[in-house]
Protein backbone atom coordinates (compact mmCIF):
# COMPACT_ATOMS: atom_id res chain seq x y z
CA UNK A 1 0.00 0.00 0.00
CA UNK A 2 2.79 2.37 0.95
CA UNK A 3 4.43 1.55 -2.32
CA UNK A 4 1.36 2.61 -4.27
CA UNK A 5 1.10 5.82 -2.22
CA UNK A 6 4.73 6.48 -3.12
CA UNK A 7 4.00 6.10 -6.82
CA UNK A 8 0.92 8.31 -6.48
CA UNK A 9 3.03 10.93 -4.72
CA UNK A 10 5.70 10.81 -7.44
CA UNK A 11 3.10 11.18 -10.17
CA UNK A 12 1.30 13.98 -8.35
CA UNK A 13 4.57 15.83 -7.87
CA UNK A 14 5.43 15.45 -11.53
CA UNK A 15 1.94 16.66 -12.53
CA UNK A 16 2.36 19.79 -10.40
CA UNK A 17 5.80 20.49 -11.92
CA UNK A 18 4.42 19.79 -15.42
CA UNK A 19 1.60 22.26 -14.98
CA UNK A 20 3.63 24.99 -13.29
CA UNK A 21 7.35 25.03 -14.12
CA UNK A 22 7.67 23.19 -17.41
CA UNK A 23 6.11 25.94 -19.49
CA UNK A 24 9.23 28.06 -18.76
CA UNK A 25 11.47 25.70 -20.70
CA UNK A 26 9.49 25.39 -23.91
CA UNK A 27 11.38 25.18 -27.21
CA UNK A 28 10.70 25.76 -30.94
CA UNK A 29 7.99 27.95 -32.35
CA UNK A 30 5.46 25.24 -31.46
CA UNK A 31 6.13 25.59 -27.72
CA UNK A 32 7.36 22.06 -27.21
CA UNK A 33 7.80 21.02 -23.56
CA UNK A 34 9.05 17.76 -22.02
CA UNK A 35 6.45 15.38 -20.63
CA UNK A 36 7.67 14.65 -17.12
CA UNK A 37 4.55 12.69 -16.19
CA UNK A 38 5.31 10.04 -18.82
CA UNK A 39 8.71 9.47 -17.19
CA UNK A 40 7.00 8.78 -13.87
CA UNK A 41 4.44 6.65 -15.60
CA UNK A 42 7.07 4.48 -17.28
CA UNK A 43 8.73 4.04 -13.91
CA UNK A 44 5.43 2.83 -12.40
CA UNK A 45 4.72 0.60 -15.41
CA UNK A 46 8.12 -1.10 -15.23
CA UNK A 47 7.75 -1.59 -11.48
CA UNK A 48 4.10 -2.75 -11.28
CA UNK A 49 2.96 -3.93 -14.71
CA UNK A 50 0.22 -3.24 -17.21
CA UNK A 51 -2.79 -2.88 -14.89
CA UNK A 52 -1.12 -0.43 -12.53
CA UNK A 53 0.56 1.31 -15.45
CA UNK A 54 -2.68 1.88 -17.33
CA UNK A 55 -4.64 2.81 -14.17
CA UNK A 56 -1.91 5.28 -13.15
CA UNK A 57 -1.87 6.65 -16.71
CA UNK A 58 -5.64 7.11 -16.68
CA UNK A 59 -5.62 8.85 -13.29
CA UNK A 60 -2.65 11.09 -14.12
CA UNK A 61 -4.09 11.93 -17.54
CA UNK A 62 -7.47 12.77 -16.05
CA UNK A 63 -5.88 15.13 -13.52
CA UNK A 64 -3.92 16.81 -16.33
CA UNK A 65 -7.14 17.09 -18.35
CA UNK A 66 -8.93 18.70 -15.43
CA UNK A 67 -6.06 21.17 -14.98
CA UNK A 68 -6.03 21.98 -18.70
CA UNK A 69 -9.78 22.84 -18.68
CA UNK A 70 -10.15 21.68 -22.26
CA UNK A 71 -10.61 18.44 -24.15
CA UNK A 72 -11.37 16.33 -21.11
CA UNK A 73 -10.39 12.69 -21.57
CA UNK A 74 -7.75 13.10 -24.27
CA UNK A 75 -4.76 13.08 -21.95
CA UNK A 76 -6.41 10.24 -19.96
CA UNK A 77 -6.65 8.20 -23.17
CA UNK A 78 -3.07 8.80 -24.31
CA UNK A 79 -1.58 8.27 -20.87
CA UNK A 80 -3.63 5.08 -20.32
CA UNK A 81 -2.22 3.62 -23.54
CA UNK A 82 1.31 4.77 -22.69
CA UNK A 83 1.05 3.38 -19.15
CA UNK A 84 -0.22 0.07 -20.51
CA UNK A 85 2.65 -0.04 -23.02
CA UNK A 86 5.18 0.59 -20.24
CA UNK A 87 3.71 -2.40 -18.40
CA UNK A 88 5.11 -4.68 -21.11
CA UNK A 89 8.56 -3.98 -19.66
CA UNK A 90 7.55 -5.21 -16.23
CA UNK A 91 10.01 -8.05 -15.59
CA UNK A 92 11.29 -8.71 -12.07
CA UNK A 93 14.63 -10.03 -13.27
CA UNK A 94 15.33 -7.17 -15.67
CA UNK A 95 13.73 -4.38 -13.64
CA UNK A 96 17.02 -3.03 -12.22
CA UNK A 97 18.62 -3.10 -15.63
CA UNK A 98 15.74 -1.31 -17.24
CA UNK A 99 15.64 1.44 -14.62
CA UNK A 100 19.37 2.06 -14.25
CA UNK A 101 20.52 2.09 -17.83
CA UNK A 102 19.97 3.73 -21.20
CA UNK A 103 17.14 1.18 -21.72
CA UNK A 104 14.96 3.35 -19.50
CA UNK A 105 15.51 6.20 -21.93
CA UNK A 106 14.49 3.94 -24.82
CA UNK A 107 11.36 2.76 -23.00
CA UNK A 108 10.46 6.36 -22.15
CA UNK A 109 10.95 7.26 -25.83
CA UNK A 110 8.71 4.40 -27.01
CA UNK A 111 5.98 5.25 -24.51
CA UNK A 112 6.35 8.94 -25.26
CA UNK A 113 5.95 8.34 -29.00
CA UNK A 114 2.77 6.34 -28.33
CA UNK A 115 1.45 8.97 -25.91
CA UNK A 116 2.24 11.91 -28.18
CA UNK A 117 0.94 10.25 -31.33
CA UNK A 118 -2.43 9.47 -29.75
CA UNK A 119 -2.61 12.91 -28.14
CA UNK A 120 -1.59 15.08 -31.08
CA UNK A 121 -3.42 13.09 -33.75
CA UNK A 122 -6.65 13.54 -31.80
CA UNK A 123 -5.78 17.11 -30.89
CA UNK A 124 -5.24 18.22 -34.48
CA UNK A 125 -8.33 16.55 -35.95
CA UNK A 126 -10.28 18.92 -38.14
CA UNK A 127 -7.21 21.02 -38.99
CA UNK A 128 -5.21 21.06 -42.21
CA UNK A 129 -2.12 19.50 -40.58
CA UNK A 130 -1.02 16.25 -42.18
CA UNK A 131 0.00 13.26 -40.08
CA UNK A 132 3.62 13.76 -41.17
CA UNK A 133 3.49 17.41 -40.07
CA UNK A 134 2.10 16.41 -36.69
CA UNK A 135 4.85 13.82 -36.36
CA UNK A 136 7.67 16.19 -37.29
CA UNK A 137 6.46 19.32 -35.54
CA UNK A 138 5.05 17.87 -32.33
CA UNK A 139 5.41 14.12 -31.72
CA UNK A 140 9.14 13.69 -32.35
CA UNK A 141 10.34 16.95 -30.73
CA UNK A 142 8.27 16.25 -27.59
CA UNK A 143 9.61 12.68 -27.50
CA UNK A 144 13.21 13.78 -27.86
CA UNK A 145 12.80 16.49 -25.24
CA UNK A 146 11.14 14.04 -22.85
CA UNK A 147 13.86 11.44 -23.53
CA UNK A 148 16.50 14.04 -22.60
CA UNK A 149 14.80 14.60 -19.27
CA UNK A 150 14.54 10.86 -18.67
CA UNK A 151 18.35 10.85 -18.39
CA UNK A 152 18.04 12.59 -15.00
CA UNK A 153 16.37 9.70 -13.09
CA UNK A 154 18.81 7.24 -14.71
CA UNK A 155 21.76 9.27 -13.45
CA UNK A 156 20.23 9.44 -9.97
CA UNK A 157 19.57 5.71 -9.96
CA UNK A 158 23.07 4.89 -11.10
CA UNK A 159 24.59 7.16 -8.41
CA UNK A 160 22.49 5.51 -5.75
CA UNK A 161 23.51 2.12 -7.05
CA UNK A 162 27.21 3.03 -6.95
CA UNK A 163 26.77 4.55 -3.51
CA UNK A 164 25.42 1.23 -2.29
Amino acid at each position, binding site marked *: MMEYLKYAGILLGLIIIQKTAVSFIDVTEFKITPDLVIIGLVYVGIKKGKITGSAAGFAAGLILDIFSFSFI*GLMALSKTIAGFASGFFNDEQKEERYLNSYIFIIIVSICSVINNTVYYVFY*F*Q*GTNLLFVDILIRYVLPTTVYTALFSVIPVIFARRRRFAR
Partner: protein
Amino acid sequence: MKILLSYLGNLKEYIIFSALIVISLLLIFQNDNVQIRFVRVIAVNVIGTIQDGFSIIPNIFELERENKSLRETNIDLSKELSMLKEAKLENLRLNQMLEFKQRTNYRVATGKIIGKTLIQTRNNITINIGENDSVKIGMPVITDRGLVGKIVATSGNYSIAQILLNKDLKVSAKDQRSRVDGIIAWDGEGKIRMKNVSKSADVKVGDLLITSEYSNSFPAGIPIGYVTTDNTLDNLFKNIEVECFVNFQTVEEVFVLKFLSEDERRDLEKKYGEKSK
Protein backbone atom coordinates in the same frame (compact mmCIF):
# COMPACT_ATOMS: atom_id res chain seq x y z
CA MET B 1 -16.75 -22.41 -16.41
CA LYS B 2 -13.47 -22.79 -14.60
CA ILE B 3 -11.63 -22.65 -17.89
CA LEU B 4 -13.58 -19.58 -18.89
CA LEU B 5 -12.83 -17.84 -15.60
CA SER B 6 -9.17 -18.77 -15.89
CA TYR B 7 -9.14 -17.47 -19.45
CA LEU B 8 -10.77 -14.22 -18.35
CA GLY B 9 -8.27 -14.02 -15.49
CA ASN B 10 -5.45 -14.12 -18.01
CA LEU B 11 -7.13 -11.37 -19.95
CA LYS B 12 -7.86 -9.13 -16.96
CA GLU B 13 -5.08 -6.71 -17.92
CA TYR B 14 -6.65 -6.22 -21.31
CA ILE B 15 -10.16 -6.03 -19.90
CA ILE B 16 -9.16 -3.29 -17.45
CA PHE B 17 -7.19 -1.52 -20.16
CA SER B 18 -10.19 -1.65 -22.53
CA ALA B 19 -12.50 -0.36 -19.80
CA LEU B 20 -10.16 2.59 -19.15
CA ILE B 21 -9.97 3.31 -22.90
CA VAL B 22 -13.75 3.25 -23.16
CA ILE B 23 -14.09 5.61 -20.20
CA SER B 24 -11.51 7.94 -21.76
CA LEU B 25 -13.33 7.89 -25.08
CA LEU B 26 -16.65 8.57 -23.35
CA LEU B 27 -15.05 11.54 -21.62
CA ILE B 28 -13.59 12.72 -24.92
CA PHE B 29 -16.96 12.55 -26.64
CA GLN B 30 -18.48 14.69 -23.90
CA ASN B 31 -16.49 17.61 -25.35
CA ASP B 32 -17.99 19.77 -28.02
CA ASN B 33 -15.09 21.18 -29.99
CA VAL B 34 -13.90 21.11 -33.60
CA GLN B 35 -11.82 17.97 -33.12
CA ILE B 36 -14.66 15.97 -31.64
CA ARG B 37 -17.09 17.14 -34.28
CA PHE B 38 -14.61 15.98 -36.90
CA VAL B 39 -14.16 12.62 -35.15
CA ARG B 40 -17.95 12.29 -34.91
CA VAL B 41 -18.23 12.84 -38.65
CA ILE B 42 -15.62 10.14 -39.26
CA ALA B 43 -17.38 7.80 -36.81
CA VAL B 44 -20.74 8.37 -38.48
CA ASN B 45 -19.19 7.67 -41.88
CA VAL B 46 -17.53 4.48 -40.66
CA ILE B 47 -20.69 3.25 -38.94
CA GLY B 48 -22.75 4.22 -41.98
CA THR B 49 -20.44 2.25 -44.29
CA ILE B 50 -20.60 -0.79 -42.01
CA GLN B 51 -24.40 -0.55 -41.74
CA ASP B 52 -24.59 -0.16 -45.49
CA GLY B 53 -22.66 -3.37 -45.88
CA PHE B 54 -24.95 -5.21 -43.49
CA SER B 55 -28.11 -3.78 -45.01
CA ILE B 56 -27.99 -6.27 -47.89
CA ILE B 57 -28.95 -8.95 -45.36
CA PRO B 58 -32.75 -8.65 -45.03
CA ASN B 59 -34.21 -8.60 -41.54
CA ILE B 60 -37.61 -10.25 -41.89
CA PHE B 61 -39.03 -8.94 -38.58
CA GLU B 62 -37.77 -5.46 -39.30
CA LEU B 63 -39.23 -5.63 -42.82
CA GLU B 64 -42.60 -6.72 -41.47
CA ARG B 65 -42.60 -3.87 -38.97
CA GLU B 66 -41.48 -1.42 -41.62
CA ASN B 67 -44.12 -2.70 -44.02
CA LYS B 68 -46.85 -2.23 -41.42
CA SER B 69 -45.63 1.23 -40.59
CA LEU B 70 -45.47 2.15 -44.28
CA ARG B 71 -49.01 0.88 -44.83
CA GLU B 72 -50.27 3.02 -41.96
CA THR B 73 -48.40 6.02 -43.31
CA ASN B 74 -49.83 5.28 -46.74
CA ILE B 75 -53.39 5.30 -45.41
CA ASP B 76 -52.78 8.55 -43.54
CA LEU B 77 -51.23 10.16 -46.59
CA SER B 78 -54.06 8.93 -48.84
CA LYS B 79 -56.59 10.49 -46.50
CA GLU B 80 -54.64 13.71 -46.42
CA LEU B 81 -54.26 13.70 -50.20
CA SER B 82 -57.96 13.14 -50.68
CA MET B 83 -58.74 16.06 -48.34
CA LEU B 84 -56.25 18.27 -50.12
CA LYS B 85 -57.69 17.36 -53.53
CA GLU B 86 -61.17 18.12 -52.25
CA ALA B 87 -59.97 21.44 -50.83
CA LYS B 88 -58.20 22.28 -54.09
CA LEU B 89 -61.31 21.56 -56.16
CA GLU B 90 -63.49 23.53 -53.78
CA ASN B 91 -61.00 26.37 -53.95
CA LEU B 92 -61.14 26.32 -57.74
CA ARG B 93 -64.93 26.31 -57.78
CA LEU B 94 -65.15 29.09 -55.21
CA ASN B 95 -62.59 31.14 -57.09
CA GLN B 96 -64.59 30.82 -60.30
CA MET B 97 -67.76 31.76 -58.45
CA LEU B 98 -66.08 34.72 -56.83
CA GLU B 99 -64.88 35.90 -60.21
CA PHE B 100 -68.42 35.59 -61.58
CA LYS B 101 -69.87 37.34 -58.58
CA GLN B 102 -67.58 40.30 -59.19
CA ARG B 103 -68.42 40.27 -62.91
CA THR B 104 -72.21 40.16 -62.72
CA ASN B 105 -74.33 43.31 -62.54
CA TYR B 106 -76.97 41.78 -60.30
CA ARG B 107 -76.80 41.23 -56.58
CA VAL B 108 -76.43 37.58 -55.84
CA ALA B 109 -76.76 35.20 -52.90
CA THR B 110 -74.42 32.22 -52.79
CA GLY B 111 -75.88 28.88 -51.82
CA LYS B 112 -74.85 25.28 -51.53
CA ILE B 113 -76.97 22.53 -53.01
CA ILE B 114 -78.03 20.24 -50.18
CA GLY B 115 -80.56 18.13 -52.08
CA LYS B 116 -81.00 17.14 -55.69
CA THR B 117 -83.29 14.95 -57.83
CA LEU B 118 -82.23 14.15 -61.37
CA ILE B 119 -84.15 11.02 -62.33
CA GLN B 120 -87.70 12.29 -62.34
CA THR B 121 -89.57 14.25 -64.97
CA ARG B 122 -89.78 17.22 -62.61
CA ASN B 123 -86.36 17.61 -61.09
CA ASN B 124 -85.49 20.13 -58.37
CA ILE B 125 -82.60 21.18 -56.18
CA THR B 126 -82.71 22.27 -52.55
CA ILE B 127 -80.43 25.16 -51.60
CA ASN B 128 -79.26 26.15 -48.12
CA ILE B 129 -80.35 29.79 -48.41
CA GLY B 130 -83.89 31.15 -48.10
CA GLU B 131 -86.00 34.13 -47.20
CA ASN B 132 -83.49 35.18 -44.50
CA ASP B 133 -81.05 35.73 -47.36
CA SER B 134 -83.67 37.69 -49.36
CA VAL B 135 -84.34 34.78 -51.68
CA LYS B 136 -87.80 35.00 -53.24
CA ILE B 137 -89.93 32.81 -55.47
CA GLY B 138 -89.23 33.41 -59.15
CA MET B 139 -85.55 34.38 -58.77
CA PRO B 140 -83.19 32.80 -61.30
CA VAL B 141 -80.59 30.29 -60.13
CA ILE B 142 -77.31 30.22 -62.02
CA THR B 143 -73.67 29.19 -61.76
CA ASP B 144 -70.61 30.80 -63.27
CA ARG B 145 -71.16 28.50 -66.29
CA GLY B 146 -74.80 29.29 -66.98
CA LEU B 147 -78.48 28.92 -66.13
CA VAL B 148 -79.56 26.32 -63.57
CA GLY B 149 -83.24 27.07 -62.97
CA LYS B 150 -85.70 29.14 -60.96
CA ILE B 151 -86.73 29.36 -57.30
CA VAL B 152 -90.19 27.88 -56.77
CA ALA B 153 -90.44 27.58 -53.00
CA THR B 154 -88.75 29.24 -50.05
CA SER B 155 -88.55 28.94 -46.27
CA GLY B 156 -86.47 30.86 -43.76
CA ASN B 157 -83.20 29.11 -44.48
CA TYR B 158 -83.88 26.91 -47.49
CA SER B 159 -85.32 27.16 -50.95
CA ILE B 160 -86.25 24.82 -53.76
CA ALA B 161 -85.51 25.54 -57.39
CA GLN B 162 -86.81 23.97 -60.56
CA ILE B 163 -83.89 23.12 -62.79
CA LEU B 164 -83.69 22.94 -66.56
CA LEU B 165 -84.29 19.19 -66.27
CA ASN B 166 -87.89 19.90 -65.18
CA LYS B 167 -90.79 19.63 -67.58
CA ASP B 168 -92.52 22.61 -65.98
CA LEU B 169 -89.68 25.02 -66.60
CA LYS B 170 -89.68 26.75 -69.92
CA VAL B 171 -87.16 29.43 -70.78
CA SER B 172 -87.28 31.99 -73.58
CA ALA B 173 -83.97 31.67 -75.37
CA LYS B 174 -82.21 32.89 -78.46
CA ASP B 175 -79.34 31.85 -80.67
CA GLN B 176 -76.54 34.24 -79.80
CA ARG B 177 -75.18 34.26 -83.37
CA SER B 178 -78.33 34.46 -85.49
CA ARG B 179 -80.69 35.96 -82.83
CA VAL B 180 -83.30 33.28 -83.62
CA ASP B 181 -85.77 32.87 -80.74
CA GLY B 182 -87.19 29.73 -79.23
CA ILE B 183 -88.29 28.06 -76.03
CA ILE B 184 -85.93 25.84 -74.08
CA ALA B 185 -87.67 22.94 -72.37
CA TRP B 186 -86.91 19.45 -71.18
CA ASP B 187 -88.69 16.60 -72.88
CA GLY B 188 -88.66 14.46 -69.75
CA GLU B 189 -86.79 11.71 -71.56
CA GLY B 190 -83.24 12.93 -71.21
CA LYS B 191 -83.03 15.72 -73.78
CA ILE B 192 -83.29 19.47 -73.52
CA ARG B 193 -84.70 20.91 -76.71
CA MET B 194 -85.21 24.33 -78.22
CA LYS B 195 -88.75 24.45 -79.46
CA ASN B 196 -90.80 26.72 -81.70
CA VAL B 197 -87.95 27.25 -84.14
CA SER B 198 -89.15 27.33 -87.72
CA LYS B 199 -87.64 25.03 -90.30
CA SER B 200 -86.05 27.90 -92.18
CA ALA B 201 -84.41 29.52 -89.12
CA ASP B 202 -80.67 29.90 -89.10
CA VAL B 203 -79.55 27.61 -86.27
CA LYS B 204 -76.39 25.57 -86.55
CA VAL B 205 -74.71 22.91 -84.46
CA GLY B 206 -72.42 24.59 -81.97
CA ASP B 207 -74.42 27.82 -81.72
CA LEU B 208 -74.61 29.29 -78.22
CA LEU B 209 -78.03 29.73 -76.67
CA ILE B 210 -78.72 32.45 -74.13
CA THR B 211 -81.78 33.73 -72.28
CA SER B 212 -83.79 36.16 -74.34
CA GLU B 213 -85.20 39.62 -73.58
CA TYR B 214 -88.67 38.14 -74.04
CA SER B 215 -88.30 36.14 -70.86
CA ASN B 216 -90.29 37.43 -67.97
CA SER B 217 -88.40 35.33 -65.45
CA PHE B 218 -84.75 35.62 -66.41
CA PRO B 219 -82.56 38.55 -67.31
CA ALA B 220 -81.36 38.45 -70.90
CA GLY B 221 -77.97 37.07 -71.84
CA ILE B 222 -77.49 34.24 -69.34
CA PRO B 223 -75.79 31.32 -71.15
CA ILE B 224 -77.88 28.18 -71.31
CA GLY B 225 -76.05 25.75 -73.58
CA TYR B 226 -75.11 25.01 -77.16
CA VAL B 227 -76.81 23.27 -80.07
CA THR B 228 -75.77 19.64 -80.50
CA THR B 229 -78.31 18.38 -83.06
CA ASP B 230 -80.16 20.31 -85.66
CA ASN B 231 -82.61 18.49 -87.91
CA THR B 232 -86.17 18.75 -89.07
CA LEU B 233 -88.95 17.69 -86.76
CA ASP B 234 -91.85 18.04 -89.22
CA ASN B 235 -92.81 20.34 -92.03
CA LEU B 236 -92.88 23.43 -89.85
CA PHE B 237 -90.32 23.16 -87.04
CA LYS B 238 -86.75 22.14 -86.35
CA ASN B 239 -85.70 19.51 -83.87
CA ILE B 240 -82.90 21.20 -81.94
CA GLU B 241 -81.18 19.35 -79.13
CA VAL B 242 -79.27 21.38 -76.57
CA GLU B 243 -76.38 20.50 -74.27
CA CYS B 244 -76.47 22.61 -71.11
CA PHE B 245 -73.37 24.40 -69.89
CA VAL B 246 -74.18 23.42 -66.32
CA ASN B 247 -73.46 19.83 -65.43
CA PHE B 248 -76.36 18.98 -63.14
CA GLN B 249 -74.67 15.79 -61.98
CA THR B 250 -71.74 17.61 -60.43
CA VAL B 251 -72.93 21.12 -59.62
CA GLU B 252 -72.50 21.92 -55.90
CA GLU B 253 -72.68 25.66 -55.42
CA VAL B 254 -75.09 28.09 -57.06
CA PHE B 255 -75.99 31.76 -57.11
CA VAL B 256 -79.48 33.08 -56.72
CA LEU B 257 -79.80 36.25 -58.82
CA LYS B 258 -81.77 38.89 -56.93
CA PHE B 259 -83.81 39.63 -60.01
CA LEU B 260 -87.57 39.68 -60.30
CA SER B 261 -89.61 40.49 -63.36
CA GLU B 262 -90.96 44.02 -63.45
CA ASP B 263 -94.53 44.25 -62.10
CA GLU B 264 -95.55 46.95 -64.61
CA ARG B 265 -94.55 44.82 -67.57
CA ARG B 266 -96.17 41.73 -66.12
CA ASP B 267 -99.43 43.59 -65.41
CA LEU B 268 -99.51 45.10 -68.92
CA GLU B 269 -98.90 41.74 -70.57
CA LYS B 270 -101.59 40.15 -68.38
CA LYS B 271 -104.12 42.90 -69.11
CA TYR B 272 -103.55 42.69 -72.85
CA GLY B 273 -103.86 38.95 -72.77
CA GLU B 274 -107.24 39.14 -71.05
CA LYS B 275 -108.43 41.83 -73.49
CA SER B 276 -107.52 39.86 -76.56
CA LYS B 277 -109.53 36.89 -75.29
